[in-house]
């Protein structure tokens, strides 16, 4: 109740922000601001819009929408009330407003720790990676030939992780530390097939909390105890043991005794949660006998950002690599035998494995992992050790100083965290008198040191302690006694890349050398179906770097985070308006995590209603593979439902409902369907499920075709997730971050994280990736009601314009009423393959020669391409794409009628690299011009040359290499 009152007040604050003259209808048009985002956000201007409308045979955008969206599903109520959703404000006003919100957050000197630490993001990385659209607007590197830059960067990151943890294989990062711990627990459970898992009680509480949540719904028993003293007599019943070092209270452990002796022969997974910086001087998890190491790479140059986004790491011994969650980058070779990077072992991923996947998480935190990798590259092994020693010396110095004042400290070996016993009220004292935030557990006060602290800070703390204890001691004599520990590490990160880029000039050039290899939105349209690669406006991105947003610790006291409270309240409120739902949780860190959280909500609802046995989840076979994977992890049993011509088969649905009458938990549906069609039977399906006691989960992947015109709430869904990284302009970051909040109706609201009957915890902190929330906030505030709605209509216009322009050349699969598509459409390449042998992959790779990124391949139908242009692309860019696709069709015709050789043609050999084309021996049966510049505009505009030719996937999967080559390889 209190929360909702606060909410209304805040929104009222925001409404006043829109300058009254700007929204007053009496004020003539010419007095209004000229820096609104809408005309910049939408790619085409009026003239171009009218031309496209002609092609799709509609007189206006409104008429077009009427033709596309079935009447019975339209609901524009949420968008008619200005109290609900804001009026647009100009770019400059939003920047000012967000600056004032950031200023309401108090960035105190911070010693809270607990998995999040202050860090100096090297400015060369801040500006040229985090703030560079060349890095943040690219997609997951599925099209490896035009992604070699970020693939190399991610390989560097993986190398940092394997070198520091001592493990054999690292993935390309996970969502956050808590979920990484959860993944370790699930890996143990599925590997050893036992239902009991041990967690040491000195693991970070947020990790324990998530492990417990995850285990609860899977029926796994979690035993939390002291691993040092626990009697492991019953170890046969356990599938794994998870410990941490340094632990929650900062103690550095050597778990060798437990793992290598006590549990030597036990059939369990041995997991150590750890800290990368400490590993530059401390013994590796591998040397302590661990099978798995995980943790947060945040303190390697990624701002705390009130909780995220950050890249969690996860590394395993070789034996477990095929069951490891997340993506793995590996080295293969291209068609010319040159080494080339790619994503390896993709068959582990849920889009292929579906309900048999080892995890539901299909994304990584690529942008943040790359930052961490670059941080290690920039500092090199000696630099990292220097930072670690400095942090460690500051902490030990502080501990000695505290002791000199008679304070009892926690003894034992520590890295960066000092516990002062029996210091009641010290936390409050420091917070109110010195603007310093520290952690407190019972009577103890805890200080975690990091790279940003200085000896001056230690002296300040010491002075406050003198005051607090009313005692005196000498500072400098203690300082001089502290010397660095002797490192326990053998040399690490000896590869050239970590030892040659320590000047800013070299670093800058390396970052840009990598960036220019990749196709991002700075280069061309990325028409990936179901991915909504729309504009990420610069003014939306700018506030992410505001100090008030980026430098805040997620466990800062409420009084320091008022700006964030207002920001998150508003985002929640507006997401409720858009979805016509009751409440929102911003906790899920990705789309798949949103699905998972939504399904937990449904499970918790049934459990609380005494219907624990409702565990059947119906999923149409056309659904994205994360749906069944998330369902299984939520402890549900998946029952697939047939699809006929793109529509859910109602007969089969009825049959499946009848068969599972009493056990029906829910259905998962996507709207518009994954085939890009507004099904008119959706309301009927929802009613049917509700009539049988089930709930309805709506996948938010296609929300870009709903905003302003209909909504999950109106259609009758009980819960949906929203991909803020698709619909609401958070960039894809080259494969993460993502954000997948869920919206629920009244019935499910009490089960959201942090509420009355909370389903549990699905991330390390309540707002997970809070620091990127200014982006959707700007989307709502800068586009406003009309703008957001117009984006939806324009996305449909662009898609239909493309479809109409290509339908004579390619067979279009599935259309809705009046032969129209929604915001995306599918072209069928199977007939082409039959006639000419040219496949969807050949076309995808050939598009690279034209300077384009391919559309989505073989989803949701094998042998097809799914195209989603989004509203942000101009007609000129769409026309270039059309020209390219039409020319490719002509090339296919030439293969068909024998003008081109069946195997040696520009399609089969695509993509062509610069060195191939300029090579003096050109032996192909077509010209160099046809290979590299098949259309005049490519030569005029220039293009991103693929830096490798077609990559050999089988070689890479059969010979898995996922680290930088060692020094000796360079010497060979």
């Amino acid at each position, binding site marked *: 109740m209190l929360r909702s009152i606060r909410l209304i007040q805040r929104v009222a604050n925001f409404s006043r922000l829109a300058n009254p003259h700007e929204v007053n209808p009496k004020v003539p048009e010419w007095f209004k601001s000229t820096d609104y985002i809408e005309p910049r956000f939408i790619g085409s201007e009026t003239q171009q819009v009218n031309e496209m409308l002609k092609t799709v045979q509609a007189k206006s955008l409104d008429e077009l929408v009427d033709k596309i969206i079935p009447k019975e599903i339209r609901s524009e109520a949420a968008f008619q009330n200005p109290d609900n959703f804001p009026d647009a404000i100009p770019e400059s006003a939003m920047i000012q407003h967000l600056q004032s919100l950031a200023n309401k957050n108090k960035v105190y000197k911070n010693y809270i720790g607990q998995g999040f630490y202050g860090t100096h993001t090297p400015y060369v990385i801040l500006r040229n990676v985090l703030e560079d659209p060349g890095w943040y607007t690219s997609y997951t590197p599925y099209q490896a030939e035009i992604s070699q830059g970020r693939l190399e960067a991610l390989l560097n990151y993986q190398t940092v992780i394997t070198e520091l943890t001592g493990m054999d294989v690292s993935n390309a990062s996970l969502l956050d530390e808590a979920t990484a711990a959860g993944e370790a627990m699930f890996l143990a459970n599925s590997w050893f097939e036992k239902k009991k898992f041990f967690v040491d009680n000195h693991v970070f509480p947020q990790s324990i909390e998530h492990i417990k949540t995850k285990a609860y719904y899977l029926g796994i028993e979690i035993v939390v105890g002291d691993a040092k003293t626990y009697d492991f007599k019953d170890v046969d019943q356990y599938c794994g043991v998870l410990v941490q070092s340094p632990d929650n209270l900062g103690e550095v452990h050597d778990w060798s005794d437990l793992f290598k002796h006590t549990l030597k022969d036990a059939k369990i997974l041995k997991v150590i949660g750890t800290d990368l910086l400490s590993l530059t001087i401390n013994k590796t998890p591998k040397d302590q006998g661990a099978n798995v190491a995980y943790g947060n790479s945040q303190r390697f140059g990624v701002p705390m950002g009130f909780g995220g986004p950050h890249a969690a790491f996860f590394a395993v011994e070789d034996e477990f690599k*095929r069951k490891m969650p997340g993506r793995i980058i590996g080295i293969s070779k291209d068609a010319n035998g040159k080494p080339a990077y790619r994503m390896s*072992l*993709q*068959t*582990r991923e849920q889009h*292929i*494995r579906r309900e*048999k996947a080892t995890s539901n998480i299909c994304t990584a935190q690529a942008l943040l992992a790359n930052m961490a990798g670059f941080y290690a590259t920039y500092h090199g092994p000696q630099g990292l050790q220097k930072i670690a020693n400095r942090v460690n010396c500051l902490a030990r110095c502080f501990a000695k100083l505290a002791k000199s004042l008679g304070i009892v400290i926690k003894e034992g070996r520590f890295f960066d965290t000092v516990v002062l016993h029996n210091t009641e009220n010290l936390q409050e004292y420091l917070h109110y008198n010195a603007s310093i935030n520290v952690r407190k557990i019972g009577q103890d006060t805890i200080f975690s040191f990091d790279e940003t602290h200085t000896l001056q800070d230690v002296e300040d703390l010491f002075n406050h302690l003198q005051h607090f204890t009313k005692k005196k001691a000498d500072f400098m004599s203690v300082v001089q006694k502290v010397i660095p520990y002797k490192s326990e590490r053998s040399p690490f990160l000896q590869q050239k890349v970590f030892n040659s880029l320590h000047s800013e000039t070299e670093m800058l050039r390396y970052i840009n050398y990598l960036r220019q290899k990749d196709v991002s939105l700075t280069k061309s349209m990325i028409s990936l179906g179901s991915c909504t690669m729309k504009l990420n406006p610069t003014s939306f991105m700018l506030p992410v770097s505001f100090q008030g947003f980026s430098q805040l610790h997620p466990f800062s006291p409420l009084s320091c985070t008022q700006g964030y409270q207002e920001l998150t309240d508003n985002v929640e409120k507006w997401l409720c308006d858009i979805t016509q739902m009751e409440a929102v949780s911003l906790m899920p860190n990705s789309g798949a995590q949103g699905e998972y959280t939504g399904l937990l909500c449904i499970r918790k609802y049934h459990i609380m209603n005494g219907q624990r046995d409702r565990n059947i989840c119906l999923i149409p076979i056309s659904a994205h593979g994360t749906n069944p994977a998330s369902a299984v992890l939520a402890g549900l049993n998946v029952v697939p439902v047939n699809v006929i011509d793109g529509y859910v088969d109602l007969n089969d649905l009825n049959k499946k409902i009848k068969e599972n009458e009493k056990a029906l938990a829910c259905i998962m549906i996507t709207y518009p369907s994954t085939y890009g069609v507004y099904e008119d039977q959706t309301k009927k399906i929802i009613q049917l499920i509700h009539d049988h006691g089930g709930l309805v989960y709506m996948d938010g992947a296609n929300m870009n075709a709903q905003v302003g015109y209909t909504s999950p709430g109106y259609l009758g869904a009980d819960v949906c997730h929203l991909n803020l990284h698709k619909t609401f302009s958070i960039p894809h970051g080259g494969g993460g971050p993502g954000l997948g909040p869920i919206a629920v109706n009244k019935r499910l609201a009490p089960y959201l994280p942090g509420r009355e009957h909370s389903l549990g915890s699905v991330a390390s902190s309540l707002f997970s990736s809070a620091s990127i929330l200014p982006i959707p906030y700007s989307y709502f505030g800068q586009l406003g009601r009309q703008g957001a709605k117009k984006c939806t209509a324009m996305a449909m216009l662009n898609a239909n314009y493309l479809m109409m322009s290509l339908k004579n050349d390619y067979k279009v699969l599935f259309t809705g009423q009046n032969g129209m598509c929604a915001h995306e459409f599918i072209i069928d390449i199977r007939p082409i393959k039959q006639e000419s042998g040219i496949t969807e992959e050949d076309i995808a790779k050939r598009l690279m020669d034209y300077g384009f990124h391919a559309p989505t391949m073989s989803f949701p139908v094998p042998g097809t391409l799914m195209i989603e242009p989004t509203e942000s692309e101009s007609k000129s860019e769409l026309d270039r794409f059309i020209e390219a696709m039409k020319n490719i069709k002509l090339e296919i015709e030439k293969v068909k009628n024998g003008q081109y050789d069946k195997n040696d043609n520009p399609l089969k050999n695509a993509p062509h690299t610069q060195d191939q084309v300029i090579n003096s021996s050109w032996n192909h049966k077509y010209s160099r011009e046809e290979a590299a510049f098949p259309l005049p505009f490519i030569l005029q505009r220039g293009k991103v040359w693929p830096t490798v030719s077609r990559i050999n*996937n*089988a070689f890479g*999967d*059969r010979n898995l290499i996922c680290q930088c080559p060692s020094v000796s390889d360079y010497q060979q």
Partner: protein
Amino acid sequence: MYMRSILKLRQAFSVLTKYTKDHEWIKYDTQTKIAKIGITDYAQKELGDIVHVDFQKVGLVFKTHQSLGAIESVKVAADIYAPVAGEIVGINEDLKDSPNLINEKAEETWILQAKLQNESELDTLLDKQSYEKIINK
């Protein structure tokens, strides 16, 4: 005596080959009572470059249609289904390092060996002709 040894000889060479509509083959040696199970050449082509074989453990007692492991190619992961009921008595260790053997000689490369629960269950499976009819449909 003569007849007996002839019979023995015949039995020694008597290998019964059957197919499933899921594209597995099973070769049952009536002498040793051991069956070898693999996937057909057609299946191999459909899967593309095979990069890994995921085995179940030796000693697993399985029912008909139960998953006996999975074959991973660069683009697909496909289950191997038990053609009949039985118990796994051996796995082809060579495939751990060279999964591509299946691409090269699918019909000769066995994936696992099994003891059958009930020989007569083999009669329910397809013979070569009927299988070929299915894939040429």
